[in-house]
Structure formats: structure tokens, C-alpha cells
């Protein structure tokens, strides 16, 4: 039986970060999985590649926690697709996680580039 738990590769790094990115993507409005991945890739200038293998489990996890909700809709080219939207608690979560992320980035930056006197 394969090991369960951590998804492979950079998903380890993104475990928390991917959730944050998904939530941020959905601030603009509801989107389906394909769009979410596309948006993340493009807005990061293709630096962040979203593993689809971890995208769907992440969506599932977020929905399970009640931060996003899903519904079936029709895509741009008239295909049936599952759309996700941010819930109220997802919005709070996004705010919290964003500020925590900024603290973390600030802290890391201070370590990497000590203030010059």
C-alpha cells in the first residue's frame, strides 16, 4: 500500500501556500479548477507550476474546511465544470493567512538581507 499523506514534489513547499494562492485567486470571483491553476501560473509569470495532482486534493481540503464552496456551472466554451467560490470564513482565513505570510516573508527577508547601517 502506498504511503499516504504528503503529495509529491514542490507540493510539500506549497502545502500551506497553495491553499493561500487558491483562496487569493477566488477573491476575484468564482472559478473552476482549470482556471485556478491557469491564473496562479500566469500571475506568477509561470514560476509557480500547479501540480494538478495536488490542486484537486487541496480544493477538496478547503471545501471540507468550509473556506470555499462549490457548484456546477458552464465554462467559457460551454462545458460543464465545477466552480469554486470563496465563503465568508474563507475570506477571513485569506486575510489571516496573508498577514501571516507577509510576516513570514518579512522575517525571512530580514534574515537574508540584514539592514545595512
Amino acid at each position, binding site marked *: *500500500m*502506498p*504511503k*499516504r499523506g504528503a*503529495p509529491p514534489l514542490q507540493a510539500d513547499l506549497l502545502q500551506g501556500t497553495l491553499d493561500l494562492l487558491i483562496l487569493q485567486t477566488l477573491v476575484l470571483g468564482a472559478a*473552476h*479548477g*482549470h482556471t485556478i491553476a491557469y491564473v496562479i501560473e500566469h500571475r506568477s509569470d509561470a514560476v509557480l507550476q500547479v*501540480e*494538478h*495532482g495536488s490542486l*484537486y*486534493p487541496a480544493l*477538496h*481540503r478547503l471545501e*471540507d474546511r*468550509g473556506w470555499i464552496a462549490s457548484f456546477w456551472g458552464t*465554462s467559457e*466554451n460551454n*462545458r*460543464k*465544470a*465545477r466552480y469554486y467560490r470563496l465563503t465568508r470564513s474563507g475570506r477571513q482565513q485569506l486575510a489571516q493567512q496573508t498577514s501571516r505570510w507577509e510576516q513570514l516573508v518579512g522575517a525571512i527577508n530580514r534574515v537574508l538581507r540584514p539592514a545595512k547601517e
Partner: protein
Amino acid sequence: MGWMRYFRRARWDEERELEIQAYLEIETDENIARGMTPEEARYAARRKLGNPTQIREEIYRMNSLTFIESLWQDVRCGLRMLRKNAGFAMVAVLTLALGIGANTAIFSVIHAVLLSPLPYDHPDRITLVRESNPSKGFEQFSVSPPNYMDWKNAAGAFEQMASMSRGQFSYTGGAEPERLVGARVAASFFSVLGAQPELGRTFLPEDDVVGKAGVVVLSHGLWTQHFGSDPQVIGKSLTLDGESYRVIGVMRNGFQFPRGVQLWLPSEFDERSLSPRARGAHYLTVIARLKPGASIDQAQAEMVAISKRLEQLYPNTNTGWTSKVVALSEATVGNIRPTLLVLFGAVGFLLLIACANVANLLLARATARQREIAIRFSLGASRLRIARQLLTESILLSGIACALGLLLAEWAMRALRTLPPSTLPRAESIGLDLPVLGFAAGVAVLTALLFGFAPALQITRGAPSETLKEGGRTASAGRHGVRSALVVLETTLALVLLVGSGLLFKSFVRLQTVDPGFESKNILTANISLPKSKYSTDAQTIQFFGQVLERMQAVPDVKEAAVASGNPMDGSNLSFVFATKQLQALAPADQPSAGYYVVSPNYFHTLGIPLLVGRYFTQGDFAGSPRVAIISQAVAQRFFHDRSPIGQTIKIGVGAGDPPWREIVGVVGDVKDDGLGEAATMTVYEPCTQQVWSSMSLFLRSDSDPSHLASVLRSQVMSVDKDQPVAEIATGEQMMSQAVAQPQLRTLLLSLFAGLALVLASLGIYGVMSNMVAQRTHEIGVRMALGAGQRSVLRLVLSNGMRLTLLGIALGTAGAFALTRLMKSFLFHVTPTDPATFLEVALFLFAVALLASYIPARRATRVDPVVALRYE
């Protein structure tokens, strides 16, 4: 959402599948827009997504309660395994069931007898206060009424103190006269025990006045049997010993103290029983409730000080007498504790042997399963997962065994519950209650871990690739080491148990061959107690027993008939201080004491007690004739060793005033009155015509089984006095078996456990040797191809088995040497390290082990080299 998602996961999975499908379609559309052909587009989309099944699986797992899920999987898999290997499963389950069952049964006894508190209010504060005279060899003795009164007034460590003495009462009012067992108790008796009545009230101090109209408290049992549970019973009257008593209360169901008692009466000490001389008449049992916070040690110290004061005040009666405070629980079950602990140890050993056996079986099977396990490893199972799977199988095994063991235990408990209190006190409360069930479950889990751990560890160690390469055919050396160690362990434990049971068995046989000093075969005994109210004069009593004896002697089947004041060997006979002319110079407290019997002339003849010198009592020894006595050989040897006792005088004391001097007319053989294992008791006999006793045992000797004489006796007694009950009817065999009941019980049980241990250990040796032969078939084939004869193959296998056995025997001998001293108090004419027993047991075990390895060894000699070599 939580765990509820577990139930929705199928629907979720469907949704995910659709969603992923939608993704693929969108991506494909885009790829086509980028200019790919539809086929390329679909392919690229799939590649980008990765393995959709894996994604679904991952989400599915997120929705599972993984632990329970896979546990259930393990259980199902385990059950499948066991069903596939039904033979193995059966042997393992039976072995473990024996171990668990035996442990549960013995624990249920320990729980009921030793661990659960007595059924009284705050039982830990209830004590028994006894008199004690170590210099005379009386560690614990009954209390005399005047001493009790002084204790009661002086002792400060106790909240309350109460006396009690058992008595028997003829009850006339039913269809037949019946004898009831009662107790005369102080008014505070019930409050010492914290017992409340079910109806009415218990005694008040004003009930306890001599001469006042009698009152009685009934037990629940008596109330049910004789009063049809009449709720209006209070105030009704009851005729006991011809006198009327008014019922004032009924105790609750289950309250029985002292044991077997049916009614309680006030103690009513008269002037005589409180007189200074009565300080020497020890017959009371005293119970007392400690004050909250007071310890037994404090009470003990205080009581010793009080006794010392009494000793100085009354040197004639109290010299050498001190007192002893013991917890009631200790007094009730103290003497059975060592037996139970030894038995508990024995079943513990038995369980270990069972575990070793099953571990051996599992290890043998592990070889066969190694391929399966290796494949599962290769497919990515974690070590933990596989170990858990194996342990689950073990727990399944022990769970099934536990259920079966409980059945065995219940069956054993049913037998144990029927034991009389003298053999096993509190036996009636043995049962499969919650703590016992808990214990059984605990033992089962522990057992599973014990026998499952080694195989699980072994099987999950080592690289799977190696196993697959080996083809799972050749066992590694390491595993064999473990199995050999297990066999040595089993042999060791079995030897210890066998030595223990061998010693007990030997003791028991020796105990049974002890001559009790009388002939118990074809004897029927019964007890008749004449009420004082009806038989107030000696002449009436003498006449009654004379008539009964006369009538019984006329019955054709009755060869001999006699009466005596006690039953030999029943453990509760009277003993009194006695004096000879030489001894009377001694202070009263230093005078020796002897067992005391009042007997009819034919007593010795009836019981086959031989006359050594002089004469038996005759009809010529009647009330008015010169007073005579017969002494036992032990008295003659100790006090008349230098001259003939015939014609010497002796006095032994009961009755008001100084007992009279009596002329010794005969010396008879000794009777082992204090028990078969004890030294002969010094005994003095007096004729029942000269010293009248109102409670007598009757003895009838017949030519064959005397049981049928019971009804004849009853009707003959009723024809003399229609109100007179006959009680305690027993045969001589029953009398004797009671005397050896406890040694018999422990010998039987320990032998049973040792026998099981032997069977299991030899199965273990057999299993390991068979397995070894099977695994070394190739090697044996090579040896035989190279010219080894059958004898040398036989020797090869046997020497292997015998090496393990000898090691086990050596270790077991050392273990037994260390442990058998715990049984010292159970042994009779055998030392705990009796060399003969050790040697016999070792030889016996060796022979059994030899047989167990001979069978596989024979098989080895029949190996066909050609087949064996081709097999590899």
C-alpha cells in the same frame, strides 16, 4: 463536517471524477485552440493532469477513517487466514483457551475469596479479637466471657465489641423436629457488622437479660423456609429446645455471620459464666469494630496491655494468656491464601507455556508466509502496517481463545462453587463478574502481545529481496534460535510445575496412608443435642442415650453402636487442662492440656481404637461407681513413661468446682485428632455415665455401606422422643475426606495444571523437532546420499531435541529448587527439595521429550535421498 464525510465519500468520489473529466475537456479544448490535433490535445491534457485515479484515491483517503478502515481490513484478512489454516488455528485456540481458562478460573477464586471485601459495612474496620497463649501452642484461641467483659469495658481503639458463640437448637413446630444452627450474640453484634434487619429490629441491651422472655432474630433463609416469607412474622413465637421465643426481626438475604447460622439469640451470660473460675472457659468469638482512623496495630498494642493487666489480676486463670487482633477478612480467608497464590503462580506458568507453544506455531507458519510478506513489502506496505496485520491475527486468535476459555472457566467455577466453606471459604461468591471478565480480556490481550510479538518482529525483519531470492524454503538460523529458546522455556516451566505437583502428590499419598487411629469404614455418624429445658437431669440424659443405643443395637444391620461427646478429626473438639498427682504441683497455667471425650463403653470397639493396656469402660462404670478414665498412648508415653499408668489417677476439668480424681483403667491407641499431618493428640476419655454430656455424636458400624441406616436412626430417635432432631449425618468416609479436602483440592488442581503443562511442552518439542526435520530434509538427504546410516540420522535429530530438553530440565531444576520452598507448609513428610521427586520428575519429563522427538526423528530416517535432493 468531520467524520460524517466518511459516509459521503462515494458520492464525493463520483463528483471528483466528473470534475476531473471536465478539466480534461477544458484543457483539450484549449490545446486544440493552440493548434494540436484532437488526439494530441487529449493526450497532452492527460499528461498535464497526471494519474487521475491517484488523485481520486488521495481524496478518497482524505475522507476515510484510515485507522479503523484498515483495522477492519486486517481483521477480515486475519479471519480468512485462520479459516484457511483451520488445523493451526484450532490447535492454537485450544492451547490458549486452556491457558486463559485456567487463569480466569483461578483469578475468579482469588477475586471472590481474597480481593473482594466482605459483605459488611466498612469491612476493613471489622476485626476478630482472640485470646492467645503461645507457650501452650495456642496461637489463636476462643475468649472466656469474663475476659470479654473486661476487654469491652477497657478497650478504647474499638467503637464497639461483641461476643458470639454458636449453638444448636431443636426446633419443634414443623412436620419433623429439626436442628437449627444459631448463635448467641451480644446486643452490639449487628452494629459491629453494620447489618440492618429486613423486618423488625435487632437486639437491644435490654433484650440481653437472663430469665426474661426470649427473643430471636431470624435469618432470611429460615424466614423463607419455615415462615413462608410471612411479612407478619414479627411478634410470632418459635419453639426452640422446648422454650418459646418471640421473633423480633428478620435479617436481609445474604447476611450470614457466623457462616451457616439460621437464627440469633441474645447472649444471656448467667452468673456462673461470669464467675472468676469461668475466666478459664474459652468459648466465645469476639468481633470488634475499630474506631475510624484506628489501626489494627494500635488496637493490638492496647489489647496486649489490657491482657497483661488481667494476667496480673487473675494469675490462676490468665497466666500466659494474651490477646491478638486480626482483620476479619484475614481470619476468614487467611489460611487458604497460600494455596491460592501457589495455584495462581501455576496457572501463570501454564499460560506462559501456552504462549510459547503458540509463538512456536506462529514462527513455523512464518516460514511459509515469508513469501507473502515479502511480496507485500515489495508492493510498498510499511513494516508497521505488516506488524500490525500480524498482531491483529494474534489478537483474533487470543480473542477466540478467550471466549472459549471463559466457557472453560465458567464450567470450572461451577465445580468450585460447590466446595464447602471449610475447604474454600466464600466459594459461593465465585462467578464471572465484571472484574473477572476484565481480567480475562486483559490476559487475552497480553497473551496476544506475548506470543505474537516475537513472530511479528522476526517476520518483518530482514530484507524482502533476500526472502524472495531464497524462495522461502530455507529457514534462517536466527529463527531456529528463537524457537529453540521457546522450547527450553517451556520445558523449564513444565518441570517446575511437575516438581511442585509431584511434591504435593507425594505428600497427599503419604497423608492418606497415615493411620488416623480409628477405622472409618462402614461407620455412620450423627449428632444429637438434647435441650437442657427438657433433659435437665443427668439421669434423663443417660436414659435417653441408653435407649437410643439399645434400639439401634437391635437393628440387624448395626454391628456396633456407641456415643461420644465429639467426632474424631472434625477439628473442633474440646480440650482441657489436666493434672496427675505429679503435675498438680504446677501452677494451673502450666498444666498440660489434652483432648477430652466422654464416651459410651462400646465407643472404642465401634471405632476400632485398640486397647493397649488395662480395660475398656464397661457397664460396671455407672454414675455411682468409682470414677475411671482411659488415656491415649500419647499421654501414657509423655507422663507415665517410667511406670504403668494403670491405677494412677488423673483429673481433667469441666463442671462446677474442682474436677474429681479418676483412676486410669486403660490405655488406648492414639487418634490423629488434630489432623492427619499432625502429631498424635493426647486424649483423655471418661465414661458418659459418670460425666454427662447433652450433645453427643452417635456412631453406628455396619458390615456394608451404612448410608441406609440414617432413616432407621431418625425413626428410632423419634420413637424415644418425638421432638428430638438428628443432625450432621455423615459416613466415616465423608468424615475422613473432609479432613483431607484442602490438600486434596490443591493436589488435584496443581496436578491438573502440571499435566496440561506437560502435554503442551511435549507438543512444543514435537512441533519444533518436526519442523526442524522438515527444513533439514535436504541436508539429511545429502548426508544419507553420502553414506550416513539411519542410526546416525536418528542420533542427529534426537541429540538436537535432547540438548534442548536437558537444558530445560537443568534450568527447571534450578527454578523448582528456588520456588518449591514456597510450598513448604503444604508438604507432609516430604522436603521441598526432595531429591527423589526431583529425579523422578526429571526422568519422566526426559522420557516424554524423548518420545516427542523420536517421532520426527523416525520420519527423518525415512527420507529418500533422491527425493530430498530433487526437492531443492
